[in-house]
């Protein structure tokens, strides 16, 4: 089962390469990665999934937090957070694909975005597990697939925020 890590980092050139570099430098594996600015334009939020062990994830969290550009890190526990991702798929036989989704994957949302030359783009939104199973099942129909990677957020009062105190020296 993949674990999710969410972090806030300075929205600056070079910050993302430090985060990604850490993974290759220390030999950690990333399954998926998603990053974009937040409501605060100085901060970007990044969500990653990894299948590393609990011990390794503890190390990853500490190593990430040690990066100067990383402002806050959070381990998104499955029971206390939501996780979903979006995929765009281009398929050749729309009606069969849609019937398969409706039959076995009712938890996935889908929309038809475009229909040209009988090749249709569908937008799928849902949890990674079901999405990946569906993609296996649709193998014969898929022309193209692109996925956002998982996004995650904790439920309720716990939020990924910058620490209140900022460090002032001298």
């Amino acid at each position, binding site marked *: 089962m993949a674990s999710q890590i969410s972090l806030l980092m*300075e929205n600056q*050139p*070079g910050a993302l*390469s*430090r985060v990604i*570099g850490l993974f290759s*430098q220390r030999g950690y594996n990333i399954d998926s990665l998603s990053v974009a600015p937040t409501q605060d334009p100085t901060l970007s939020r990044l969500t990653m999934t990894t299948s590393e062990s609990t*011990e390794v994830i*503890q*190390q990853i969290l*500490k*190593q990430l*937090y*040690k990066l*100067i*550009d*990383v*402002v*806050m890190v959070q381990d998104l526990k499955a029971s206390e957070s939501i996780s979903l991702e979006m995929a765009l798929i281009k398929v050749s036989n729309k009606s069969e694909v849609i019937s398969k989704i409706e039959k076995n994957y009712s938890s996935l949302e889908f929309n038809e975005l475009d229909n040209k030359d009988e090749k249709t783009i569908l937008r799928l939104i849902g949890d990674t597990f079901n999405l990946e199973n569906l993609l296996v099942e649709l193998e014969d129909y898929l022309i193209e697939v692109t996925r956002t990677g998982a996004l995650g957020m904790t439920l309720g009062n716990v939020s990924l925020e*910058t*620490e209140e105190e*900022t*460090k*002032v*020296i*001298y």
Partner: protein
Amino acid sequence: MSNEEINGGDALIRALADENIDLIFGYPGGAALHIYDAIYKQNKVQHILVRHEQAAVHAADGYARATGKPGVALVTSGPGATNAITGIATAYMDSIPVVVISGQVASHLIGSDAFQETDMMGISRPIVKHSFLVQSAEEIPVVIKKAFHIATSGRPGPVVIDVPKNMTDPNYKFEYNYPKDLVMRSFPILGKGNDEKIAAAIELFRAAKKPVIYSGGGTIQADASKELTEFSKLIGCPVTNTLMGLGAFPGNDNQFVGMLGMHGTYEANMVMSEADLIFNVGARFDDRITNNPSKFGLAAKKIHIDSDPSSIDKIIGVDLAIEGDAKLVMQQLIEQVKASGFDQTIYKDWWSKVEAWRKAHGLNHDMLNLKNEKDIILPQQVIQSLYQTTKGDAYVTSDVGQHQMFAAQYYKFKDPRKWINSGGLGTMGFGLPSAMGVKFAFPEADVACVTGEGSIQMCIQELSTCGQYGLPIKIVNLNNRALGMVKQWQDMQYGGRYSSISYEDSLPDFVKLAESFGHVGIKVEKLSELNDAMKESFAMKDKLVFLDVLVDPDEHVYPMLEAGGSMSEMRLSKDKKTF
């Protein structure tokens, strides 16, 4: 009152002066020329011209290790930057506060494969604590301030500032203000430890029968040597230092069982193997210490004090982790032990065991008196002669290999910051340039560079720098005519197949070489001449002396941990082992 307007190059140097930097090591080139012009126009920051950028960073590193203050190197773009990389990686692995300023091609040329362009931010990224690419001339003062703050605080480390040439354009001027305050988001610096954990640590000592205090480079970085010594005296158990931690606890104190690890003493490694409590302060359970982690300290409870939480539970899981500054945590420990008292007699049986180990296979610190009919010099004897001559007070830098281990084993460092070597990265070529940094910091002190004929040739060009600035370093060259440590491994694990460890007859005449740079060279071939030559070298206060000592080419470094084994599995000599 408004400040005068100055250009980016002047601002950079002025910011260094405002950061109390009076000495930088470097090498000029196209992209750094505006900065070098700024250096020329002032006299607060002195620039030392080295002969290779690697040496500039090592010199700044040696300066930092000896003084505890940040070292600074200045290099140009492209090859200047790439030559600095080995120096930066060396400082990174040993957590040394060094700020490296690199010139860069002008902003609009970045990415165009311009002349002398290299992606310094990218190349240095995995080996820096942080790095900055200057985006505007106006931000230079605040970038400098942040760089020094980051390099020196918490667990120290190198910081790179990459400065595109147009940022230092002499014609672009702005109002200079050196920031008094600095706001940084989420940059926690650990202070005191948790009081309950401090109390728990002391309880673990009370419950232990066979404890050991294992201290590393972090203790020295935190300037916590005095506190470590005081705490160790209150507890009264064996103390061992890592290669990086030598001098944090006095090496000539009976409570000290020597260095531990790969080439640690028999008694230190036995103490670690049999201990029921391992108290780690400022060390990181490095692979040269633990040997096989799955066989490490199986019977011991473990306490780990570190200013970097990511060091805790990284290799060895611990029972009690105290995150904090070593100096403050040790002060808390001392306070609590003093308040409650501590009965050291509970370790009496443990000490009898330790003394028996020491007696059985401890290092012989009296090898100068060995009977020696052939008059051959053993490398250990050279270190003992150096120790006697300098009374254990010298700053000793080293390169990497057998000579480094002999120096670590036999020079009984009494004080912190006096043993300066590349422990983590293991950089040959570190010894001479780092000795230059030390000598600039402490012109009156004895500074010895213990090296080998292999390592010294990796930065030998710095003999010229030493001549230019009059640096009377004593180079003690343990010349065994081969890459000794490699040869030792080839003896032990490759059936004596000596692959690429010999220079055949192509070694330089080091005496003539030294003389050609205006220094003094002395060659020693007989043990009976060693002490006199050593004394003569150190008596020449104003001269760099290259003491080329021909040592036994067949000597190995022992003890040596057996690969994949526990800490008690050691080779003690060519034909004796513990397993």
